[in-house]
């Protein structure tokens, strides 16, 4: 069982400000059903359109997501928009007497919803996220490249969270943002980002080895297929099987949804790029029917 503080439990069992505000001035919506949590935040401003006089929320998620949303609404009431923008995810966690580290992403979601609401109200641009991966959060002012495709998270956003929370490991980044928590395909990229933010040369991404014996090469090919490629295919109901390795020629056969899929050529190309990236530059992937 999670070790939730009494304040978290109280805000989960007796959430404050659940519901919507029909004539809300600002609405911020982040997350989705597929992500496993989502929050819709409603803010009502005073006549000067400066101070938040009421806040309500609707949340889909675990106990700490509900508690974080409840805490957020309590915290921002009475604040000016500028004061509200200064609320950090750590402030939300502190208000609750702390959150288990694995649940810190719930406080981040609260802070995001607040920013989205206020940015939208002020007419500031909110970047469109890639509709193909539209199961992610919206990131005000955090344009940039999508790093985590599973949760739709950009590099700019990750850098911000890494920096403000002084995160040093991929595990922490996953706990705070979810990035890297599903297929794991973006973990090398997250390592790069941490290294970049910390200016730390230790957290190097996985790199292609300089020299490989034939035996090692075969092992590494299998490892990359198992760890980096097949989980991606499973996510779409597909699969592949390694048929043979002959020097640099890797023969694979597609299974399940991938078998006979019109874009299996693209998938084979993806496999080749990944293997070239992580094993050896001269790898050629060949699709065989077997």
């Amino acid at each position, binding site marked *: 069982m*999670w070790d939730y503080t009494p304040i978290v439990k109280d805000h*989960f*069992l007796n*959430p404050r400000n*659940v519901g919507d505000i029909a004539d809300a001035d600002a609405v911020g*919506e982040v997350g989705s*059903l*597929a992500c*496993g*949590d*989502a*929050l*819709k935040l409603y803010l009502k401003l005073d006549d000067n359109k400066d101070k938040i006089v009421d806040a309500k929320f*609707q*949340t*889909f*998620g*675990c*106990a700490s*997501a*509900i508690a974080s949303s409840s805490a957020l609404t309590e915290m921002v009431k009475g604040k000016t928009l500028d004061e509200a923008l200064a609320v950090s995810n750590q402030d939300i966690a502190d208000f609750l007497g702390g959150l288990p580290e*694995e*649940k810190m992403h719930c406080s981040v979601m609260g802070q995001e919803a607040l920013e989205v609401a206020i940015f939208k109200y002020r007419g500031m641009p909110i970047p469109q996220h890639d509709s193909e991966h539209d199961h992610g959060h919206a990131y005000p002012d955090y344009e940039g490249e999508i790093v985590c495709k599973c*949760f739709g998270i950009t590099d700019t956003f990750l850098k911000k969270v890494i920096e403000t929370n002084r995160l040093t490991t991929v595990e922490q980044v*996953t706990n705070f943002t*979810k990035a890297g*928590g*599903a297929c794991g395909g973006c973990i090398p990229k997250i390592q790069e980002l941490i290294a970049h933010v910390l200016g730390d040369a230790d957290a190097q991404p996985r790199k292609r080895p300089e020299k490989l014996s034939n035996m090692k090469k*075969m*092992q590494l090919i*299998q*490892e990359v297929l*198992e760890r980096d490629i097949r989980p991606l295919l*499973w*996510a779409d*109901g597909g*699969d592949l*099987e*390694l048929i043979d390795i002959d020097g640099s020629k890797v023969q694979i056969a597609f299974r*399940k949804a991938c078998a006979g899929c019109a874009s299996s050529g693209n998938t084979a190309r993806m496999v080749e790029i990944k293997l070239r990236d992580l094993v050896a530059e001269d790898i050629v992937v060949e699709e065989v029917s077997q």
Partner: protein
Amino acid sequence: MKEIYLDNNATTKVDEAVFEEMRPYFCELYGNPSSMHFFGGQVQSKVNEARGRVAELLGATPDEIIFTACGTESDNAAIRSALEVFPDRRHIITSRVEHPAVLTQCRNLTQKGYRVTEIGVDGAGRLDLEELKAAVDTDTAIVSLMWANNETGVLFPVEEAAAIAKSKGALFHSDAVQAIGKIPINMAASNIDMLSLSGHKLHAPKGIGVLYLRRGTPYRPFLVGGHQEKSRRAGTENAAAIIALGKACQLAGEHMETENTVVKALRDRLQDTLMAAIPYARINGDGAERLPNTTSIAFEFVEGEAILLLLSEFGICASSGSACTSGSLEPSHVLRAMGVPFTCAHGSIRFSLSRYTTDAEIDTVIREMPPIIARLRQMSPFGREHLKGQG
């Protein structure tokens, strides 16, 4: 608060009779079964009795029973043994919905150069036997498939699968941890070479397991350094737990019919009533043959951890396939392998009953569950849109 324990696939209460059976073997009859003196000898004879009782539940002979520390050890030992027995065979077959005790080991073995095929399941969690047929070849050392799934209770056709494995000379192992004690098993009329059992899933204590090893099956021990268990599992016997397991197996045999009539009826009433009372819900594994004690229900628009904690307020103990309960961010690999949409998997709750479950307990769950789901849906930005007019 009195607990309403509906999480018996996680662990079970130790039956009082089982506890009484093991009690003397701590402070009074603490001898080592291997000792030459009478004091150890009397423990040895109780251990032998227990071995006989376990064998009887499985339809096996006593020499086919190897006591281990847990189901996980049995799973690990079975797979590793097969690979040592067949050094020239480099292929392992398992399924995508196995318990991590099997799946993690198989995936780790790919890094040692083994080829691993994970057979898929259909939307109801049923094994694809055709895929298995196509996958087995003369390079296959072992096929390891669970008898019953821990999350959904869905049963695999292990006998057919074993026959397919053996047609190519591979060994067949089944993780039967969830099946034993809940459905009848007769190894005397079976093709299966190895079987894993875990004591704490059938009202024995934690820390005791069994690897069933068919007579004549080649075997290499996992633990070496002692003659115990005919040198197939070294280490001083956990005598008290073995004796407890013997009693638990005897009781399981006696209660087998209850499990498949009374417990099943309670399970059916629970799932049917909840399905009728709560819209936007589905049974994971509906349509497949399932264990009599298990039901896994997906509730849309709500998240499993929140449901569990609200149930916990009423003393109700269940479990979830949701991501948030496990610390991982993805819902259960079993539900994903079945193609359960993420939107449902996050709100999946598993109830697993036992012979101790009462009518009154089921009444409480039936009473408390619908308002809990309604309350969370009221709070959810999705539930409200879908459930307008449904209260």
